[in-house]
């Protein structure tokens, strides 16, 4: 236990403080047991680097992304306008999030509804902290590991961000490898477009199995991701292939925390 107190916007406002960044935790980051660990890892890094931030806590609500992708524009816009009101109350101008879906919708789709913010995905933010020397990874920790990175669609093709996660991974000085389908040719994990919340249509195999097989074939022992949905799909895929002993699935924030030894 590191006794980190996570600053909450309402409390900060009551103290008359105005944190520089809103850290948008997202529903997966708040509720998904596996991704909660990523949220904690990222918060540790924020504190380690001395970033001025706060979360919305109980005032956070779904920003409507899965509803919009499922075709329910009404529910999406109700959520979005609610979130925009909350942001307005705390004069939010800069948002960081660990979820590429949240990143995409804030960055690209909220402006249509009047919500304009400087939105950063945690991969971009961490890359910057590494570059500025605020996070210095210990090169010994992962020197015997091989890391393969899976591009989340909404970060990669969706927003053209292929390199920031790779640069964070490069800072770990592990061995790295690539899947044959990487960057703009990356193969989806199968969870996007609201697939996360439903069974797949009948077919020959699960999309996540196809991608997991590709990741396992590289021989890497760590599959790195930067998206809660990709994490769920690949973790399940690795379990389905009975490889969970040999191959681990981590978010880039978790890898950085491990390399700093601040667990």
């Amino acid at each position, binding site marked *: 236990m590191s006794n980190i107190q*996570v600053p*909450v916007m309402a409390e900060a406002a009551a103290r008359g403080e105005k944190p520089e960044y809103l850290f948008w935790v997202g529903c997966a980051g708040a509720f998904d047991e596996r991704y909660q660990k990523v949220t904690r890892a990222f918060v540790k890094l924020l504190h380690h680097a001395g970033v001025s931030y706060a979360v919305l806590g109980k005032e956070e609500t779904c920003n409507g992304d899965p*509803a*919009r*992708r499922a075709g329910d524009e009404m529910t999406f816009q*109700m959520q979005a306008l609610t979130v925009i009101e909350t942001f307005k109350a705390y004069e939010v101008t800069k948002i960081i999030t660990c979820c590429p879906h949240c990143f995409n919708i804030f960055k690209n789709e909220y402006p249509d509804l009047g919500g304009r913010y400087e939105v950063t995905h945690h991969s971009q933010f961490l890359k910057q902290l590494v570059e500025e020397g605020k996070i210095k990874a210990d090169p010994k920790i992962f020197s015997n590991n091989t890391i393969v990175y899976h591009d989340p669609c909404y970060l990669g093709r969706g927003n053209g961000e292929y390199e920031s996660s790779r640069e964070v991974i490069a800072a770990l000085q592990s061995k790295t490898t690539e899947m044959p389908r990487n960057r703009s040719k990356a193969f989806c994990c199968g969870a996007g*477009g609201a697939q996360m*919340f439903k069974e*797949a249509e*009948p077919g020959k195999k699960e999309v996540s199995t196809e991608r997991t097989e590709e990741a396992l074939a590289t021989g890497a022992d760590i599959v790195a991701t930067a998206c809660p949905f990709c994490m769920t799909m690949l973790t399940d895929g690795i379990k389905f292939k009975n490889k969970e002993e040999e191959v681990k699935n981590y978010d880039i924030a978790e890898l950085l925390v491990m390399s700093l030894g601040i667990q």
Partner: protein
Amino acid sequence: MAKQIIFILALLTTLGVFAYTMRRIFSFFRLTKPFPLNDWGKRIKVTLKVAIAQSRIFRFPGPGLAHALVFWGFMVITLGSIEMVIDGVFGLHRSMSATGWFYDFVMASGDIMAYVVLISIVIFLIRRLFMHIGRFYGIEMQKKSKLDALIALGIILLLMVSLAGINLSYVQMHPEGYAGFYPVSAKLAPVLFGEGRDLYVLHEISWWSHILLIFIFANILPYSKHFHVFTSIPNVLLSRLEPLGQLPNMESVTNEVKLMMNPDTAFAAAPEGAAAPSRFGVKDVEDVTWKNYLDSLACTECGRCTSVCPANITGKKLSPRKIFVDLRARMKEKGPGLVKDGSYDDGKSLVRDYISEEELWACTTCNACARECPININHPTLIIDMRRYLVMEEAAVPPPLATMLQNIQNNGAPWQYSSEDRMKWAELL
């Protein structure tokens, strides 16, 4: 003089038929919804990169190179075709030869490219006829589509053979000198004809078959998937410029939601002039934007989209290519009725009669299709628009998604967790 009259009649027939076809297609465009355009500077850049420089097609390097060579070949050869039309109409001979070095350049590049295109077309024919290329197959690839491909390749092959025939016979007939510069034909002609100079008939046959084939080709194209030849450059110029991850906003919903969320207007009647849209989302051809329809006309069914689609690769019914093949076919079916009578209804629709719910719900919106399309067709936005119709007009939602939506409405998360628990993750810090 007789030749001139025949040529002018052929040209007028070509233009007449073409104008008829274009009028028909434009009447279909008038049935569609708006798609706002902006940022012309960026559009021109995208066109230079994606269309002129063929950047996307090289993502499949081998066939990509063959295609790019055919495309660039067509561009230079078309300049020569313009001269042929001028010659034909005014009864002239090589009317542009007075342009000097420019003429040499156009003729030389056209001569080289004629043979390059010829080789590329032979490669394409071999791929189509003798190799089993996965993306050339699929439920949407009907006989007509395969026949279309072979007809187009056959005509282009004949166009290049006849062009070579023109150049070969021309240089061979004039050993004393000729207008323009024909690096390949000048080398090849003596090999083929030796000292024979009497090639007037071959020249005439080549010239007439080349120009008449162009006229015929131009009028077949709009009725085949190779309408692509005319529509793909405009399609790239008019592409969606937003990041692929971004979905278009539904203004009509924004107006309703704002009314609902404002306590002063929540129970009041909608203000005048704020007419509700006829339909949320896309059910049929009259609901799509003109850009969606242009996408369907520009698609040449290469199947790169489907070949990278995760749903398709893992055996689901969804094929992104089929979405646009279906849209085009449905417009062809319903368009004429709608042009005559705006309320025409044949009891069918694009959603369900052509594209099943199963296909629409299989999409992960990963955008691999849109990223791969060599002419910037955007499949996911149209798929989402059809989901919008299913969900908002028919409440036809797969049950697990209905649960997810209910959770968002009730407790502000796609899962059934209380917002009171939103900070639980921090307890373990």
